[in-house]
């Protein structure tokens, strides 16, 4: 089961994961990561922009590579675009597999690529001012682990 989406409205990760799990009967394990807008750092809002011709096709290619690299039964990859408030989910990746290691590693792989190698641009509002956010060096280092 493969479900790759860009969403412009708030979503409920629990509902998506429930459907996803039901759609992969016989699985041995599911691993899920949900990223949310942090609410403890003075951030008033977060905005994610994208480039239509590249962003969703790029996520589909990432899913292709994830299925090729890990022994998966299913993959759910949902990413928000638009303006979000603290506490709202930004991203949800869930992988279903016969065995846990493939599911855990597949989610890690997808998240590292979504953070630093997918066609999104993120900015946050603090004190009424917008600031663009670039990946941290740690994000690039995390991504580089998979090049080996």
């Amino acid at each position, binding site marked *: 089961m493969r479900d790759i989406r860009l969403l412009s409205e708030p979503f409920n990760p629990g509902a998506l994961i429930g459907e996803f799990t039901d759609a992969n009967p016989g699985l041995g394990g599911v691993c899920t990561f949900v990223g949310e807008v942090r609410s403890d750092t003075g951030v008033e809002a977060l905005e994610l*922009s994208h480039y239509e*011709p590249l962003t969703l096709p790029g996520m589909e290619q990432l899913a292709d590579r994830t299925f090729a690299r890990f022994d998966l039964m299913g993959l759910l990859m949902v990413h928000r675009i638009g303006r979000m408030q603290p506490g709202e989910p930004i991203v949800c990746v869930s992988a279903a597999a016969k065995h846990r290691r493939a599911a855990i590693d597949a989610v890690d792989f997808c998240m590292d690529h979504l953070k630093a190698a997918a*066609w999104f*641009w993120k900015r946050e509002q603090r004190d009424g001012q917008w600031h663009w956010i670039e990946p941290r060096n740690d994000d690039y280092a995390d991504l580089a682990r998979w090049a080996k």
Partner: protein
Amino acid sequence: MAVTILFLGPLRDLAGREAMEVDAPLEWAGLLEVVGADVADQLQQARVNIACAGKVLADKMALQAQDGEEVALLPPVSGG
């Protein structure tokens, strides 16, 4: 017809606009001339990519945009 240049992410602020139209064809040298000095500086950095007609260019200096095509200027990304 023309070539549309799109400024993505922080390049939009640097350019002071989201898009501009220029005469076709558009090549690398012409692009650097029309986008302004600040954006041109960014484009010459390896971490900034260019897409033409929906495809990211492996060699951005080989840009050859024709009538009706869209050229997207893609600064470093940050998702998740």
